[in-house]
């Protein structure tokens, strides 16, 4: 049998229906299902690395990519994932069309719903937008990032990358560093990592770490040296440069000096610690190229690869639920 055929068998074995009708937040998952989804993800990685990447698990299904915010990597990751599963994919950069004409989110949703898609992948700048849409449409909704609320597939792909690098996520100490306050990636990762038994620390300047973040079950640090001590994983977040305008941060050079990850700071973490970043990176602001490009410590390229596999697992699992609901 070819590698692709082995992978396809593995996928068929491991396929499990999604526990909810939508995937809006990390809380829609549960630990046994996450493990199953990661197993499935591993199989998709094998498939993606073979020469025949196409499957027909979503044949006849329409996946609508609805991106109200600009995004290249997430929308193409979802598009590739859906296409490899055999779906008909339409990617709509909504930012450029009807929204500008004044149509409300719900009107757009109702209109698109009438075209009978099966899965709606949504990114929107407002927290809660994906949940609102899910109440108004008849198809499955996948949250691809809503405001500063959640980005659950990102957390899932991070988990897949970590499990492949460390074997097990339980017991790992993961430091999420930077602009926690405005980060949906941080919120989803805190929820999912904690669910899977990792210890999560949050590190950043006090203006960028919510004051009540310690109640999320995380330890909060404002000093990188203290926060990184004993960490297995350093997950850097992107610093939005417009944060300088609102007096949240004085300058990028000061940010890099105190919270940017370079060799010196990475040495404060446990030996062999891995570095992650959801991308796109501001080199020289939150991360030094020296660290980001060192494949012996950086999982950043892996994260992109795992993104497609994890999203294939989510879409396939949601499609299976749609199948069984029929």
């Amino acid at each position, binding site marked *: 049998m070819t590698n692709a055929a082995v992978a396809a068998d593995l996928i068929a074995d491991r396929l499990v229906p999604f526990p909810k009708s939508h995937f809006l937040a990390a809380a829609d998952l549960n630990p046994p299902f996450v493990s199953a989804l990661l197993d499935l993800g591993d199989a998709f990685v094998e498939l993606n690395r073979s020469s025949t990447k196409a499957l027909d698990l979503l044949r006849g299904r329409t996946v609508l990519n609805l991106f109200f915010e600009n995004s290249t990597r997430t929308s193409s990751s979802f598009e590739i994932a859906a296409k490899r599963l055999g779906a008909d994919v339409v990617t709509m950069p909504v930012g450029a069309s009807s929204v500008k004409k004044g149509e409300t989110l719900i009107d757009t949703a109702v209109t698109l719903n009438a075209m009978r898609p099966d899965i709606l992948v949504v990114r929107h700048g407002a927290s809660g937008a994906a949940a609102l849409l899910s109440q108004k449409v008849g198809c499955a909704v996948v949250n691809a990032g809503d405001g500063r609320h959640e980005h659950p597939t990102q957390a899932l792909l991070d988990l897949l990358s970590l499990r492949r690098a460390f074997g097990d996520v339980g017991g790992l100490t993961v430091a999420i560093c930077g602009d926690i306050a405005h980060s949906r990636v941080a919120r989803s990762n805190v929820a999912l990592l904690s669910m899977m038994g990792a210890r999560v620390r949050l590190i950043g300047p*006090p*203006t960028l770490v919510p004051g009540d973040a310690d109640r999320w079950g995380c330890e909060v640090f*404002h000093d990188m040296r203290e926060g990184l001590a004993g960490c297995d994983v350093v997950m850097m977040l992107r610093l939005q440069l417009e944060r*300088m305008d*609102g*007096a949240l941060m*004085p300058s990028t*050079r*000061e940010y890099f*000096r105190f919270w940017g990850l370079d060799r010196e700071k990475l040495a404060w973490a446990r030996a062999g610690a891995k570095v992650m970043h959801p991308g796109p990176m501001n080199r020289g602001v939150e991360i030094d190229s020296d660290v980001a490009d060192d494949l012996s410590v950086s999982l950043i390229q892996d994260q992109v690869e795992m993104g497609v596999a994890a999203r294939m697992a989510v879409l396939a699992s949601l499609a299976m639920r749609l199948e069984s609901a029929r």
Partner: protein
Amino acid sequence: MSLAVVNARLLDPASDYDGPGAVLVEDGVITLVEHGGAPIRGEQVIDAGGLCLTPGLIDIRVRTGEPGAEPKETLKSASLAAAAGGVTTIVVQPDTDPAVDDPAMVDFIQRRGAALGLVNVRAAGAATKGRGGSRMAEIGLMHEAGALYFTDGDHVIADSRVLSRVMSYATAFNALIACRPADPWLSEGAVATSGELATRLGLPSAPAIAERIQLERDLALVEQTGVRFLVDQISTEGALEVLARARGRGLEVAASVSINHLCFNEVDIGDYRTFYRLDPPLRPESDRRALIEAVRDGLIEAITSAHAPAPAEDKRRPFAEAAPGAVGLETLLPAALTLHHEEGIDLLDVLRPLTEGPASLLGLEAGRLAPGAPADLVLFDPGAPVIVDADALRSKSKNSPFDGRRLQGRVARTVVAGRTVHAL
């Protein structure tokens, strides 16, 4: 090289010691403090002849004109004035041109000051860029470069969101933030405190509550963020009450008062003498009394000279158009001693907010007579009469409200890191 100062009356607020003694200095550091009359030796011996020996004064609010307005005051003229006044550490305000709002400027001030070889010149950094009140300055980098605290000086950060973020951010470095409590809209254009006198004089005035209102806001933000905070130049009884209430709730906030507001009241502006045009404006006598009692009760961490040089051309104008502020480095000690001579406040309690108080607020080693502390010392005669002559002041600007006043207290010698920088 060792230096022994013997036969002195030691006044050390940090250890509450007021009595005879001697101090030995080696390599710029105090190595021995002897209480009582036991003899000590040094390669150089100074017989104090019974004069008072106290840690050099620390003045945390000094404006100069360097860079940007050198005709007003340079770091050199300010340092000379400080040395003559027994002030061994000055903290220069960031309101220069350009403002001290980045680490290179902090470095510039401190290096220029050190090169003079006179007193310790330290810098306060701006809290916002250009002291503009909208974008945060590089507090972390300036802190690393040696800035002792952060303030926009006489500019009030009106935007509460900006101030709350500055405060919150500063906690990452355990940095001290200082704010002038003055409601910017009530205070706009005011040169006097609202009341009968200001009305009669026809001067634009601000009500005293302008201070209280802003202080209430500042303290609410301090409570929320947990920042280390200094109330810069408190001047009214109402604000003192607000401060006392906050401290009663367990809030740790420090307060400074300017020497001018302890020595003068609004009646002094009666002849439109612009040397009494100050910011905050002079207050009614009841406020001055309340400030004196606060010093007596130990509620004030720092007394400052609020040194603000303004040349004659900026002062010889109609009252409301004159530049605010007064020079004060050289007169700080005798002016503060009026609190002892006239108000009966214990000498140690007068000296504490001039030495140990600001030192512990800013985390300085100086400000105490103890082994290991830098040998920053001042020898003075507390009772010697002086008549202040503004023209004889070392400051480039001569705008002293004490001009012509009879005070008591003369600095005989000022020592910085074991080196005499001023002697009669």
